[in-house]
């Protein structure tokens, strides 16, 4: 952050979204696409999803972007798979 007076609304790139998912969820591999850098779609594969309900799997991913969904990230269409 440039230390300005106002918070800057950072527009994340698809790469950033991918990197953050993979950093936060051990063993995760993410494919992320965006046409406009506000609506994203992601396919996330992770061993950490094993034994979790789909809702719990999606929550793990949503938790990475807590507070940003509906803000800088308007929408994150999600598909999860256990590896």
């Amino acid at each position, binding site marked *: 952050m440039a230390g300005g007076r106002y918070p800057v609304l950072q527009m994340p790139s698809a790469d950033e979204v991918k990197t953050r998912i993979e950093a936060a969820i051990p063993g995760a591999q993410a494919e992320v696409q965006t046409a406009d850098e506000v609506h994203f779609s992601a396919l996330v594969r992770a061993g950490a999803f094993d034994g979790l309900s*789909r*809702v719990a799997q*999606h929550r793990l991913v*949503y938790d990475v972007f*807590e507070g940003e969904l509906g803000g800088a990230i308007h929408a994150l269409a999600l*598909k999860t798979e256990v590896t």
Partner: protein
Amino acid sequence: MSDNEIRDAIATAIDDNDVILFMKGSPASPACGFSARTVAMLEALETPFAAVDVLPDPRIRQELSALSKWPTIPQLFHKGELLGGCDIVTEMYESGELATTLGVQAPGDAPEQAPAGPEPQPAPMGIENRLG
């Protein structure tokens, strides 16, 4: 209504209705494409459901997400449990799991792919024109 009362009203609505959808807009005029798609899937299965519009008061969405630990809208609940948002409901619809979970028989003419639903209408702004 205080925030606590809103949260209690949401919890009661989830308890009282076997199938309840929290959405933007109403089933007849959804205000967002994801809500429209979720409504269209439930309608394709001809399953009765209750619907709550989260738009009239931002605290509805805030309290709902605090309760469900789910950040986005729509949210579909079945017998008190969150089934998911539009993505999960779409996967469940296409695999047949949604009909099974809801205990309904998919009608013969229900599309295999999740139906897109009507074009979302922008939410009414609630501005009253008193100039005319």
